[in-house]
């Protein structure tokens, strides 16, 4: 088996009395799309924040390429090659696409103009931005268009392109299709596939089961602050995954999925069960 590119063991994060991450494990293998699913409040966004450096875990270990790392902020994770596409995209709408792609890591001109005058190499940045968009098949009129003139799907594409351009190890995407229509969602899924095909593994956080089953190679099911199961879409059904994330099903040590008796403990559930 491949060594995981990004791995976590026993992560814990507490906020006062609330435990957001409760001994979670995580494995991302090279070249795969790993979907992370979980109910609201299952703690999947806390997990993702820990992996992208936005949250510092209280306990546990994160490894990149087998090496332990300690992220103190998003910048550390980025330096380690982990790029994140946030749900609100983190784009500056008034600035053009090229500026947004290079926001926070602008390129300076070589020579004294760059080092003394701090001049930016606008030409190189534009060319490189255009190249990334072309490679990913993103069709946009001009690289100098302000982001605010783009459609929702195009903005998503720009944010994804930025992650793809700078991510050397991992791209993490938080609900990339949540705000999009059918056609635009399909394009974003295509984009994810292209990134994987370039050899960059992708972590996809999503609520949308059909999207997950369409694109993911493996599905990490998160429940009650930890990993409840990992399944392959090829070997399982959506119902199974939904069962796992609601707790109606459970995956044993041997990887066999079984039904959980009395898993549903609400009064209504008990009532229904006893009526059977």
């Amino acid at each position, binding site marked *: 088996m491949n060594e995981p590119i990004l791995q976590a063991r026993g992560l814990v994060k507490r906020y006062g009395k609330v435990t957001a991450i409760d001994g979670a494990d995580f494995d991302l293998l090279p070249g795969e799309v790993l979907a992370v699913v979980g109910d609201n409040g299952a703690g999947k966004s806390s997990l993702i924040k820990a992996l992208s450096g936005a949250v510092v875990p209280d306990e546990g270990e994160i490894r990149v390429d087998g090496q332990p790392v300690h992220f103190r902020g998003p910048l550390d994770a980025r330096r380690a090659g982990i790029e994140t596409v946030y749900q*609100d995209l983190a784009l500056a709408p*008034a600035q053009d696409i090229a500026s947004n792609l290079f*926001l926070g890591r602008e390129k300076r001109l070589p020579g004294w103009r760059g080092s003394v005058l701090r001049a930016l190499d606008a030409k190189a940045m534009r060319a490189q931005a255009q190249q990334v968009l072309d490679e990913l098949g993103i069709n946009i009129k001009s690289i100098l268009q302000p982001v605010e003139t783009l459609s929702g799907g195009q903005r998503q594409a720009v944010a994804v392109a930025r992650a793809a351009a700078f991510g050397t190890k991992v791209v993490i995407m938080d609900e990339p299709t949540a705000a999009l229509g059918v056609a635009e969602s399909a394009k974003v899924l295509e984009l994810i596939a292209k990134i994987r095909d370039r050899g960059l593994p992708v972590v996809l956080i999503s609520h949308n089961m059909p999207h997950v089953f369409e694109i993911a190679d493996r599905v990490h099911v998160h429940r009650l602050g930890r990993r409840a199961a990992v399944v392959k879409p090829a070997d399982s059904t959506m119902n199974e995954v939904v069962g796992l994330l609601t707790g109606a099903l459970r995956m044993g040590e041997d990887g066999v999925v079984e039904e959980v008796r009395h898993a549903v403990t609400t009064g209504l559930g008990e009532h229904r069960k006893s009526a059977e």
Partner: protein
Amino acid sequence: MTLNLRTPAVGPTIALVVAVVVFSVTTSTFLELDNLSLVVEQSLVVGTMALGQTLIILTAGIDLANAANTVLATLLMAKLVVGGAPSWLALLAGLAVAAFIGGVTGGLVTRVKLPPFIVTLGLLTILTAVSRIYTGQSVPVTDPLLSWLGTRRYLFGGIEVTYGMTVAVIMYVVLWYALTRTSWGKHVYAVGNEPEAARLSGINVRRTVLSVYLIAGLIYGIAAWQALGRVPNADPNAYQTGNLDSITAVVLGGTSLFGGRGSVLGTLVGALIVTVLRSGLTQAGIDDLYQNVATGVLVIAAVALDRFSRGRQR
């Protein structure tokens, strides 16, 4: 069609050109080179304060205390010289204190996370009072260095240019360059446009905003030097409307009060346009109160024209 964000706003530029043409035709005195030079000279102090104001407004802030800071710096410079300090030291002290006040403003905005409007509203009151405590009356300035920007002049292509104008042009060019051609500038725009996006992109938002307030403070210090060149008399009651005048110039120049959009070249146009109007109307024999009406109409008209030309963009 989307118009360029960083070119001076179209509406005000058109208004400026129209005003110049109208006054050139209707008065015999407006289009003299001397007068054009004079108009620039009259715009210097507000134009310089507006430069710092532009930076702060680009970060979605606002500075109500900029003129109060400038006035305090003029008093400090003038009083130190009167008290026997060497003039270069007085100048440096004035610049340093203005920059320090800028830094304090930035610190309160970034560290204590207070809205810039509140911070500078408070500072406006404090600085105005401090100025009046510091000296109850105006201080005449006879020192050649302190009035250097206004008194030293040379001919450039037949146009009279003061050192003050030269310094202002250099400042505008430097800031235009820094805002459009360096990472710092990109970060300033991003921070004003979408601070969370800037943070997630790895920009140190606090440091960027703090740097803006510090630089703005230094610019207000230079505005103080300009002010002493223009009126060699430091007066605790001067420039009471300087904050609003500078905001007017910034807004006329097409910079958005919401931050993240605008340009210093626009501000230059904005600063000139009000002065051109006053100069031209005076030479046309129009009284002061009507000039005020005209200025107000212009502000609304120019910005409306600008918005119209930009379509649905804000």
